[in-house]
C-alpha cells in the first residue's frame, strides 16, 4: 500500500510507503492540491488554486484544463466521466476518464464545492447560493435546482443509504434530498462540514460547538454526542465512528470511552481498504501517521511537505 497525500502549500503529492512511512516520491501537481480520487487506475488531483486538475497515471502527470478556478472534489459516473465542481466559479467540469479531455461544463450554483452521483444524476452543492443543482452529466445539462432555504452554504454532498445528503455549514443542518425535492432536514452541530457514513448511521461533526451528531438514514432519530474540543471530521472503520480533532492528539471513538493517542492532532483521515487502519493528516504539523485501530497505536509518522490535506491509500 502507498499513502498518497496532497500537500496544499507545497503543490506536491507525496507518496509514503504504507509499511513504514518512508517517502517514496514527491509529484508536482499544480497549485494547492487538496483532494484525490482514484478512478480506473488513475489518480485525479484537485488543484484548487488552478483552472485545471492533474491526473497521475503510469508515472506521468497530465494537466486537464477546467477553464474555471478552484477544482475541489471529484465524482465518477458509470459512463466513464469524472465530475469536478469548480469552487471559484459556477461550473461543474466534466472530464472524460479515458481521453483525459474536458468534454463539457455545466452551469451550477455559485461556488460549487462537492458533488455526488446517484442513479445517473450528479448533485452539486453550492457554497454561494446554498442550492443543490441536479445535473444530467451524460447530457451535459442542469435539470433543476433544489433550494435549501434561507442562507445555506452547502459543503459536503454524499450519496448513501439510497439518498443524497447535503451539509449546510451556515445553518448547521443536514438535508436529505431526492432528485426532485428536499425530503427532510435536521439540525446538527455548529459549523458542520461533511457527513461520515457507517453501516446504520451517519455522523456529522460540529466544529464550533464540540459535538458529533449521529443520525438515522431518514434523519428521524438523532443523538448528539457532546465531545468538546474542535472536532474536524469523523471516519468510520469497521462500523466504529472515530473522531478527529484539530487540537487534540487523540482519536476518540464516538459514543464510547475508547481513545488512541496519536503524535499530533489530526485534521482529516482515510480508512485503509482492510478497514483496520486509518491514515491521518496532521495538517497543522506537516506530518502524516498510520494508526492501527485494532492495536490502538500509531504504526508510523512521517514528515511531509507543507499542509498535508486528505490522504488516500493506493
Amino acid at each position, binding site marked *: 500500500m502507498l499513502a498518497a497525500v496532497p500537500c496544499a502549500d507545497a503543490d506536491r503529492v507525496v507518496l509514503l510507503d504504507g509499511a513504514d512511512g518512508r517517502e517514496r516520491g514527491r509529484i508536482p501537481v499544480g497549485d494547492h492540491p*487538496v483532494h484525490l480520487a482514484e478512478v480506473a487506475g488513475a489518480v485525479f488531483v484537485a488543484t*484548487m488554486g488552478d483552472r485545471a486538475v492533474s491526473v497521475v497515471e503510469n508515472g506521468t502527470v497530465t494537466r486537464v484544463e477546467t477553464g474555471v*478556478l478552484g477544482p475541489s472534489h471529484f465524482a465518477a459516473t458509470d459512463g466513464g466521466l469524472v465530475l469536478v465542481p469548480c469552487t*471559484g466559479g459556477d461550473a461543474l467540469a466534466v472530464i472524460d476518464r479515458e481521453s483525459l479531455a474536458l468534454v463539457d461544463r455545466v452551469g451550477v450554483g*455559485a*461556488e460549487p464545492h462537492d458533488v455526488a452521483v446517484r442513479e445517473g444524476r450528479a448533485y452539486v452543492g453550492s457554497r454561494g447560493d446554498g442550492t443543490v443543482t441536479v445535473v444530467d452529466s451524460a447530457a451535459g445539462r442542469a435539470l433543476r435546482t433544489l433550494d435549501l432555504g434561507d442562507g445555506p452554504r452547502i459543503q459536503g454532498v454524499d450519496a448513501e443509504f439510497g439518498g443524497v445528503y447535503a451539509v449546510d455549514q*451556515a445553518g448547521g443542518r443536514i438535508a436529505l434530498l431526492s432528485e426532485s425535492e428536499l425530503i427532510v432536514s435536521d439540525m446538527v452541530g455548529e459549523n458542520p462540514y461533511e457527513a461520515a457514513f457507517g453501516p446504520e448511521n451517519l455522523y456529522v461533526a460540529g466544529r464550533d460547538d464540540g459535538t458529533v451528531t449521529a443520525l438515522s438514514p431518514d434523519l428521524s432519530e438523532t443523538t448528539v454526542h457532546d465531545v468538546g474540543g474542535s472536532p474536524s471530521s469523523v471516519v468510520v472503520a469497521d462500523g466504529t465512528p472515530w473522531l478527529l480533532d484539530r487540537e487534540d492528539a487523540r482519536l476518540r471513538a464516538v459514543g464510547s470511552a475508547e481513545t488512541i493517542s496519536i503524535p499530533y492532532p489530526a485534521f482529516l483521515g482515510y480508512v485503509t481498504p482492510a478497514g483496520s487502519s486509518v491514515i491521518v493528516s496532521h495538517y497543522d504539523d506537516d506530518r502524516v501517521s498510520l494508526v492501527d485501530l485494532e492495536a490502538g497505536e500509531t504504526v508510523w509518522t512521517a514528515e511531509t511537505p507543507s499542509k498535508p490535506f486528505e490522504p488516500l491509500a493506493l
Partner: protein
Amino acid sequence: MCTNPNVPPEGGGRTLTGGPPRCRAGRESERDDVVDARLAERRVEIEKTADGGVLVDVRPPEAYLGARRADELVASNDRHGHLPGAIDVHWIDNVDDRYVTEPGQLASLYFNAAELDQGDLIVVYGQGNVDPTHTWLVLRALGAEDVRLYDGGFREWANVSGDDRGRYPVETKTTTVIETSGSVGGGGDGGFSCTG
C-alpha cells in the same frame, strides 16, 4: 467616446474591438442565431486572452467578487462575479477629482500594481461600455499596444441562458487561496479554501 451608458456600441456590441469604440443611436435587431454565433466566437477569443493575455475588469471590487449584496449594484444581472481569469482595476482610479490621474500614478497602477505589460494583449470590460472605454483610452495613452474592448461586457456574459452558463462561467474568487480556520471561510476578499 460614448458618453451614454444606455447606448450600445456600433455593430450591436458583438465583437472584440481593437479600435476606438464608437456609438450609434440604437441597437438594430439581429437574428438570434447570428448573435449566438458571434458570442461563441467572442468566448473563444476571451478564453485565449485569459490564457495568453490579460482580462481587465474595470468595475468596483464588490461587483468583481460577486460580494454578498452585489445584486444591489446591478440588479439586472442574473449572475455576479467576473470572467474567468480577469483581474480587477476599478476605472475610478483613472480620475482624480475632475481630472485624469497624473500619468506616473497611472503607469504605476497598471504596470506595477496590476502587472500589465505594454506588449500584452489586454481586453478590458465593464458592465457596459463607458467605463472600460475610459480604461482603454488610458492604457493606449500609456503605450499599451494591443488593447481591446469586450463590448458585450459583463452584462452580456452574466445573462446568457441557463443552458449556456457552463460555457460562459462566472468566477467569484481569485487565484489567491487563503486557508481559514474555525469560520465559514472564503470571505469577501476573493480568497477561498477547502478547510473552512
